[in-house]
């Protein structure tokens, strides 16, 4: 379960009893391994919760902590410490995989701040949603629908053994167009990252809503591109 940021409650080290930030894997005082911390993924690496991350630092810290958590180092340790080294390693891997990928990092941080993304709004209240204009993408939907129709047509024609070469051309054109749209979405996302990282509380809120909508659009576009590429590649 995700915990909200800034909830780093000091906890006492099980070994030396000195209080430390809850999200460290090792006690800063006596260096003993700690049970899996309850804070967010950023604090595991000692990083500020930001969308623009220094990936070099992330990777360096990941390797450093992975080495420190290696099971060989706990061969003669107590049963608790052995268990924790495995649990901490699992947490570290999850945290690294989530933070190094820009989209997963964005989703993760927005979720920490209460945004509902993807499957999370399954079973949502449609009445409430209809009032939320950032979610509604009528123009994009039209295009998505039309492209799906073209894809289906091409598949049917192929099955009948007579694919219209013009349809393939149209799909290839659509593919470049949607790749372009994806690029626009990604550029916009990066622009929102900057706002989110540096903005005031209200600017942050606006950027967050925008990013949730962009992530929705992105999911459509990437699904669609996958389908187009599969269909074109099946020749």
């Amino acid at each position, binding site marked *: 379960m995700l915990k909200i940021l800034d909830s780093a409650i000091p906890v006492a080290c099980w070994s030396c009893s000195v209080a430390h930030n809850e999200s460290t894997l090792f006690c800063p005082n006596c260096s003993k391994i700690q049970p899996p911390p309850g804070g967010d993924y950023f604090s595991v690496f000692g990083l500020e919760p930001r969308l623009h991350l220094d990936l070099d630092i992330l990777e360096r810290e990941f390797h450093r902590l992975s080495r420190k958590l290696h099971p060989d180092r706990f061969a003669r340790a107590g049963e608790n410490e052995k268990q924790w080294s495995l649990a901490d390693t699992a947490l570290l891997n999850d945290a690294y995989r989530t933070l190094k990928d820009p989209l997963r990092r964005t989703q993760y941080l927005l979720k920490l701040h209460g945004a509902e993304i993807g499957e999370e709004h*399954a079973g949502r209240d449609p009445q409430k949603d209809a009032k939320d204009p950032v979610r509604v993408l009528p123009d994009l*939907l039209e295009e*998505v*629908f039309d492209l*799906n129709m073209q894809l289906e047509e091409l598949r049917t024609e192929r099955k009948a053994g007579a694919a219209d070469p013009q349809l393939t051309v149209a799909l290839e054109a659509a593919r470049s167009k949607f790749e372009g749209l994806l690029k626009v979405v990604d550029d916009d996302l990066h622009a929102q990252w900057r706002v989110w990282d540096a903005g005031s509380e209200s600017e942050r809120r606006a950027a967050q809503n925008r990013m949730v909508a962009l992530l929705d659009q992105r999911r459509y576009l990437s699904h669609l591109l996958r389908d187009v590429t599969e269909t074109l590649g099946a020749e």
Partner: protein
Amino acid sequence: MAYSDKVVDHYNNPRNVGTLDKASPEVGTGLVGAPECGDVMRLQIRVNPDTQIIEEAKFKTFGCGSAIASSSLATEWVKGRTVDDALAIKNTDIVKELSLPPVKIHCSVLAEDAIRAAIGDWKKKNATAEPAEAAAAAQ
């Protein structure tokens, strides 16, 4: 996860697949999407202007089996109902009828959204000040 028999039946024999003339004043078109899964659903209704009864309904859905079954069922259910009656169809009714598992509830929401969007489009075209519309706006 196995689909229920009813979902499989609608998936294998979808009812009312097709297109109605979007330009006709008697036709309402609803195009909705579920960004969580990339599904798109188009549902169209043809309304008799004298009786307000939905005489024809067509759909086309690109999505999973549950999305196709939900929209197929929706077209069956709206046919023969008045416009206001059709608005009473709830996604939970679809969930029950098709025994959709919790992860597929959003497919039924999509179908309900599609019905509302199609009726909304038809109302906009015909600009009738329906009491139901006023009630919906007041919500």
